[in-house]
């Protein structure tokens, strides 16, 4: 009896799943993996080469199966991370480990080099935003942040704006690496102390999009609840003119991106090498230049009311040598604003 049960169950499962795979319609896009799935057309073009990819991609309940596997690995084998993402009390936290001395020193060399070669006539500052792994408790692999900050303090020849301990875990999105936009309100006065842009209490309209899944969801491979993404606007922000070097004029908040797989691109349309934001209603001639990563995308809109012009430079997408063709640094305020993730992987920055 046992033999028959095992035989029929095994053969039955193989047949039923096999038939389901080919009978059910193909899914073209995986929201969780943020990529196109292999469809039957590819199998038709190269049966032997693409069959396995097709069957794996179109496996019935693929997302649920992957999610189930993540959970079993977490609870059965106590594997804490998936694709270098920890799940801690609903927060998806990307591992930033180990401390890479070469990369950190390279970061320091790069900003010192830019400072001494391009910014002699500018007021220059730097600031560091801790990534979410800063808030991990014991029992997880975590960067030696004390060592990182001590190294910066020792070797960077630029004035430091300390916002490092201003944040708590709740200031970050649960499913994304970034800080929520409203979290930056608490450091506005700190920046104002150095940059003197005249911070004051302004009125903002609070806009909420309720179905936000951050980029970390695609890495962890298991179901998590969506969260809200908030963005703040007022007449200064709404009327600002935003010009991207690559794709021309856009709004500060690119609402079309809310329906993309990466909704954080709402803020200044996502990755971009060079952005100029002009606020003709500022009533002053203040200009700010920011060397930045994507954390600044949600912060900079809050600075718009205080400046006539803000220029954002992302050195991951443009070489430093080319920047003077587009930006004049003379007598400007310049801020290097990077997350600790970039500091530990600074070879991405195209300097030299």
């Amino acid at each position: 009896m046992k033999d028959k049960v095992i035989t029929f169950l095994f053969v039955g499962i193989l047949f039923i799943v096999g038939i389901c795979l080919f009978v059910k319609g193909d899914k073209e896009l995986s929201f969780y993996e943020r990529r196109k799935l292999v469809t039957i057309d590819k199998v038709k073009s190269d049966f032997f080469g693409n069959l396995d990819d097709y069957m794996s991609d179109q496996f019935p309940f693929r997302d649920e199966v992957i999610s189930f596997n993540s959970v079993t690995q977490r609870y059965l084998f106590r594997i804490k991370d998936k694709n270098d993402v920890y799940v801690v009390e609903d927060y998806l936290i990307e591992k930033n480990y180990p401390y890479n001395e070469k990369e950190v020193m390279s970061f320091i060399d790069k900003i010192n080099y830019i400072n001494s070669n391009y910014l002699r006539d500018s007021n220059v500052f730097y600031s560091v935003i801790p990534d979410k792994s800063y808030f991990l408790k014991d029992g997880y692999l975590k960067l030696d942040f004390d060592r990182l900050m001590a190294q910066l303090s020792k070797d960077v020849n630029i004035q430091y704006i300390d916002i490092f301990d201003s944040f708590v875990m709740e200031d970050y999105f649960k499913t994304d690496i970034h800080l929520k936009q409203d979290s930056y309100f608490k450091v506005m006065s700190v920046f104002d102390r150095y940059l003197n842009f005249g911070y004051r209490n302004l009125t903002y309209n609070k806009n909420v999009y309720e179905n936000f899944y951050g980029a970390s969801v695609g890495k962890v491979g298991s179901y998590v609840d969506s969260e809200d993404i908030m963005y703040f606007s007022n007449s200064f922000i709404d009327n600002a003119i935003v010009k991207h070097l690559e794709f021309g004029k856009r709004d500060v908040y690119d609402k079309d991106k809310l329906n993309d797989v990466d909704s954080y691109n709402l803020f200044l349309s996502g990755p971009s090498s060079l952005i100029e934001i002009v606020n003709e209603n500022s009533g002053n001639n203040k200009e700010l230049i920011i060397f930045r990563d994507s954390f600044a995308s949600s912060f900079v809109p809050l600075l718009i009311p205080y400046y006539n012009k803000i220029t954002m430079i992302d050195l991951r997408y443009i070489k430093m040598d080319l920047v003077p063709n587009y930006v004049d640094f003379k007598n400007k305020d310049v801020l290097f604003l990077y997350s600790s993730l970039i500091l530990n992987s600074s070879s991405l920055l195209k300097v030299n």
Partner: protein
Amino acid sequence: MVFSSISFLFFFLPLLFLVYFLAPKRFKNYVLLFFSLLFYFFGEKWYVILLITSCVINYLCGIFMERFNKKAFLVIGLFINLGLLFYYKYTNFFIGTFNDIFGFGIHTLSVVLPLGISFFTFQNISYLIDVYRGDVRAQRNLFLYSTYITLFPQLVAGPIVRYKDVNEELDKRDSSYSLFSSGVVRFVTGLGKKVLIADLFYSMGTSIMKSNMSFLSYLLVAISFTFQIYYDFSGYSDMAIGLGRMFGFNFKENFNYPLIASSVTDFWRRWHISLSSFFRDYVYIPLGGNRKGIFKTIRNIFLVWLLTGLWHGASWNFVFWGLYFFVLLIIEKFFLKKYLKGGIFSYFYTFVVILVSFVIFSITDLSQLFVFLKGLFCIGVTLVNYESLYYLDIYFVLIVVSLVGISPYFKEKLENLKKGKLNKVINVCEVLWVILVFVLSVTSLISSTFNPFIYFRF
């Protein structure tokens, strides 16, 4: 194509079941031959022609040995088989070595190693030698011979099945629910070993290797290498044996709990049995074995282990791996034998030397290997660090589960219980266990294709 793939499980296998079990008895071997070639074609495309050619040549050599000159056609057959193996597997290794030693600038060949060539070449050789010795009669049917060589369960990763062991089953074999279901249980067990355990040890090893290393880290990586190779290879053998049973073949065991061996000699009686017995029967004994004095015994053992090392891969670390075992076996044979009789020292000694052997096996870069071995012997590294304790904590359950699986203790207990009153309960549990392992394995396979595309964005 590999057994642990979705296309094998849910396309190839059900299709084969359908055609094979509906086909009349006299066509079943043709069905197996066709699907075996299809299986090979999936992974290797046009190397299938090489496989077919190899079958035809060896089939003809077998026939000609009986009809004409035994020795001449044995030599021709061996020359062709070993020539093909040398060309595809070792040419670039030797060119590279000559270039390194003599500074030649000889260009390497752009050849890709055909999957399973080491296995099917050895099966062909064993067949030719058995025919030469008169242990079996040459197979008169080319399709039957080709079915034996290409039989997909053992084609790409063994075990090395000898013709004389399956000769009768090729002609006539039984199928029953009992045999089929035992095949399913064995196959699923192997799949679980490969997918649920070996692959996790691979992740463990690669994760730890990226961290700051301490002695404990090196030890954990050595453990991960050992368990990964054991669970991967023995899992694949289990799957092969299980699939064989589903189609009525009874392949011999290839592993017999090697990680609880009490000496290296004992280990090689339990590890990759089909390979070690091949070298014993076709190299060691024909050279005289241990019957021609100490010097020749040592020479014969040396040759066997040099060849064993080279068989595993065309790289110097495999040569060292083979010679490492040669040295250990000689030491055991002449000095240690009396101390290795199953006590704690025996098991500890064996486990440690096996651990080191799999480090040599896994690290192909000799300079990295040297650094690793230094670390493993705690030279120039700290004993423990935060990271190694973190990884020990993370992978502790996996290591414990794997330790349970390297011993027959629980299996034997279960078999004893089956003989008693709990038989029915255990049968139900066994069915549930098979389903659970299969479902978990499939979810793990799907999850391994989880391929998030996230551009570098922060």
